């Protein structure tokens, strides 16, 4: 897992949370994304997908995957799936 990519994903997650009024910028790779972790609901996940797509021209959700943790997003891109 590259640190730069992890930082980039963390920044996007922080922006998603900020849009719903949550101030958080520090994440761990093992953090779970949804109600049992960071707290994303369907609208937040939609935002995350849009921001990832905007940043990388590809997002895991549009590729048939449904990441459960921060690490899974990072792995999606570090596995060479990003354009």
């Amino acid at each position, binding site marked *: 897992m590259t640190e730069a990519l992890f930082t980039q994903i963390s920044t996007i997650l922080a922006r998603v949370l*900020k*849009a*719903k*009024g949550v101030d958080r910028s520090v994440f761990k790779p093992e953090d779970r994304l*949804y*109600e*049992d972790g960071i707290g994303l*609901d*369907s*609208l937040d*996940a*939609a*935002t995350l*997908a*849009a*921001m990832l797509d*905007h940043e990388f021209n590809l*997002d895991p*959700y*549009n590729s*048939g995957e*449904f990441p459960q943790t921060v690490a899974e997003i990072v792995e999606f891109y570090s596995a060479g799936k990003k354009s």
Partner: protein
Amino acid sequence: MISALLERYATSLPGGAFIIDAQGTVTARGAGEQLSGLVQVLKEIGEDGICFYVQDSARLVQSILATEAAGLQCCVLNRQSPSSEIAAILERLGTAALVTDAQGTFPAKKIVQIDDLIHDAASRRGSVKSVHFKPGTIVILTTGTTGIPKAAQYTWQRLLGRIPSRDAVQGKRWLLAYPLNHFAGVQVLLTALRDRSTLVIPEARDFRTIIDTLIKHRVDSVSGTPTFWRMLVGRVTDEQAERLEIEQITLGGEASTADLLERLRTRFPSAAITQVYATTEAGTCFAVKDAMPGFPVSFLDRPVGNVELKIIDGELYVRSSASMISYIDGSPAPEWIATGDLVERTDDRVIFRGRKSEIINVAGVKVHPLKVEEIILRVAGVSAVRVYSAANPITGHIVACDIELEEGADEDAVREMAQQACGAALSRYEQPRLLRIVERLERRNEKLVRRGSA
């Protein structure tokens, strides 16, 4: 008629669990016994009709059913809407009575807390031997988010008329995934009642709670939007999937995509998949059970039940004997209802291509771009803005916006202020999920080019 269904349920399956919510289980007999008391109290509260602004719960379901038996008009308001919006809707509907679980002031002559309603009704239970079964009506508001949703009035008979009769089916467990202010939520309630089944109301709408509820109460039938199903399929683990007992998957409110239908088939291989096409005004129009996107071309050639379909200039029109009886302002339902859905006829299929208007469908909720633009245009430093629909793998579409800055404006500051303004004035569905700062918005004849999506 609705109350007669409850009576039939209570007689044939008195111990049958009719409603399960966070407070416990209400049997068919228990619901039936409460009915006469509720009818009496509701009649005293509202002669013209009653609005409910209450969290989805067994007591709300029982109260709704009692309005029908009381011969009253009933309207369930979106409990997620802010009280200011509720006030505007109440004034427009002109309903004098409001039953609520919220604190605050509302423009209604009579405001009753639902706790008091239930308590008062319980004290009168059985004090009247016969209930006056004059039929009531229900008003269902469209999910449009302009603040002035259209109000479609239905008889309960019409709503029931489009639910296929399945006498052999009983004892199903339906999850209430739609709220009760939504057309589809009422349909799920009526289906559970008519089939002498159980309505399971989740304590919350997050997916951890939803999945726990599905497992705990052994839910076998679920109706939800494609957005709901994408999240459920994405969230459920292999271990949880093995414990789920879903036999019936119903989708509606948005167009289903081929990839979602395939994922549902893979995850729930033994479940029947039904796509329902319905609108608040036209009611339930048809169902497709082949788990393919769109509907068969043959539906255009012959009536589907009591519904006829036609395409004019790429837009789907519906004529139905089960549509609303009128708008609440008294204007009648048009004979052919323009659905606003753009469709394309292929060899043997009619495929949904989007909406005719600029309305954005976010997870089944309609968002009007102009309303969002008005909010953002008030932000200092914004020169022009275009709000549009962007395709999204979770919610089908999201609200996106491009902002053109005034000269010298700080990009980060404008972005933050725009988000704050939208967060303060708009529902979560309406808030832009993608906000881009652009050099210049495209104009034609000095008008912003509004069509197109990301």
